[in-house]
């Protein structure tokens, strides 16, 4: 139950960041990254980044 609660809290935190316009990505072993819209519970690390723009 505690684990489920932690997962829900993590999902809510991620959703809040995505609502703010952040982009979530999971790094792959080959050095690329994959954008995610939902929290992948199996991922070791989900990185949030801000959107980029041309200069």
């Amino acid at each position: 139950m505690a684990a489920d609660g932690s997962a829900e809290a993590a999902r809510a935190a991620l959703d809040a960041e995505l609502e703010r316009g952040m982009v979530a990505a999971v790094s792959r072993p080959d050095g690329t990254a994959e954008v995610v819209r939902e929290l992948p519970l199996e991922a070791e690390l989900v990185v949030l980044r801000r959107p980029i723009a041309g200069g």
Partner: protein
Amino acid sequence: MEPGLAAAPPAGGLAEAARLGWREEASARSVRRDGRRWTAWTCWIVGVFAVPGVLLLAIEPLTFPAAAICLAHAWAIPWLQARRGARQVVAIGSERSAGARADGEAERVALGLLGDLLGHSERELVATAGLAMQRGELGVWLVGERGALLVRSRGRRVDSWCVRVGDDAGLPAGDRVAHLLLALREDELGFAKVANLGFSGASWRVRPELEPRARPALDAARALARG
């Protein structure tokens, strides 16, 4: 995580690129074509000013002052373009770095997080040269706080891209690089679509215009591009 051959486009691509529907999709072909356009333009500028200068001298040596002005333009305009291209990229720790005016503790934390995204040699390069190196399908990228250099054609050509974090207010220097690096890893072609190409030319033209501490990063990228 070990940085490998990065930025194979994910299924969705870069969201920022998808919003730029009016802009041409970037590809290895479009990058090569734009590079050739830059070379043609540079040759044209040199010719337009150098040929009249030489002709003036041949016809009448006393027109030397006017010929000198023509030849100076033929040299200065390509030089200014290369300089602008080099200065589009802001290295961590440079005079224009956000870290120069930010909270030291936040900078240290940001650099630590950036280091976690990099392999050992790339981490050392960030510490010494202030640019993050990332190998991609188009070539070898050097990512700064603002702007990125793409070293390609076996290290002979450098493209300078103007790109930044959309809302970078208050963001430490290390975080700025990390955000751009993550976007590049998500979708290299999307990254090139969002960024604006500000210069493309021979790497020997760009290197002297880089800040001295950033030059080893270009050397390392050229060596990697040569394979």
